[in-house]
């Protein structure tokens, strides 16, 4: 079975989690998620970022870069912090429930 929908939902929150430590630009986020095997192509990060911005969970700022033209940095908004906190709680319960059933426990 394809994990497409499940993965897409989870990756959006992984992006929020990566931004907890401070603002980052797209290239950094793309390589972290790609190396972790969470996105197939680095390019698919950018539609996700666009959607997170439309939802108001991240916003962006142009900053000068040491070499080359200015870069767009992404950072968490207050709404993004809240959405991430709510997801972490729901995800914990969801993961435990799935794990329990996958292990074949009868008293689930």
């Amino acid at each position, binding site marked *: 079975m394809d994990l497409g929908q499940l993965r*897409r939902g989870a990756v959006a929150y992984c992006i929020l989690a990566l931004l907890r430590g401070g603002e980052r*630009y797209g*290239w950094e986020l793309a390589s972290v998620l*790609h190396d972790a095997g969470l996105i197939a192509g680095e*390019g698919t990060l*950018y539609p*996700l970022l*666009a959607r997170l911005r439309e939802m108001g969970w991240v916003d962006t700022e142009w900053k000068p870069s040491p*070499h080359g033209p200015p870069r*767009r940095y992404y950072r968490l908004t207050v709404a993004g912090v809240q959405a991430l906190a709510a997801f972490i709680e729901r995800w914990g319960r969801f993961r435990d429930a799935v794990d329990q059933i996958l292990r074949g426990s009868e008293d689930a």
Partner: protein
Amino acid sequence: MTSLDRIEALVAEYLAALDAALTDVPAARRRQILEDVRQHLEAARASLPPDDEAGIRAVLDRLGDPAAIAAEAGVGFSRRPRWVDAAVPWLLLLGGFVGGGGWLVGAALLWTSRVWRLRDKIWGTLVWPGGLFGVGVAFGTVVGGVQTCSGSTVAGHPLVMHCTSRPGWSEPVGIAVLVGIFCAQLVTVGHLERVRRGAAR
């Protein structure tokens, strides 16, 4: 062709393919994705030797197929038509005959619809305001011309009026232009209808 030229060509080709793949994505989202990918490539190039063609190929490979990016960009966005969208081409074409209000309703529905892209909306509005009714009014002005009158009264003498009539443009040119606009109007409405049917599938 130097390797620098080849790198430029590879990057330009990738961005053009992505731009084409994102055609159906709403304009703001499309612009942001293209900007980010362009920046991604600039950052990657800044980290590589300027003539590292194999390096750039690897970067493009990691970015992935433009179609995959476009597929991701389309999620959560529906282009499914509303039932009123079916009326839009007709309102734009003939709505002007309903006291002018029909065309305005058509234009308002056109701009609030998700079926048509920005360029369709601009095109649909500008060619031709008022629809066929608007073309008819313009036609009347050209053929009928514009009549200007001037009169003077001098105390105790009758009023004298001088009227001159002149066509807005030279007539054959004006008629040719209007026939062109008439055809453009039909083509525009046909295009809007085709886009709508495509989205309805």
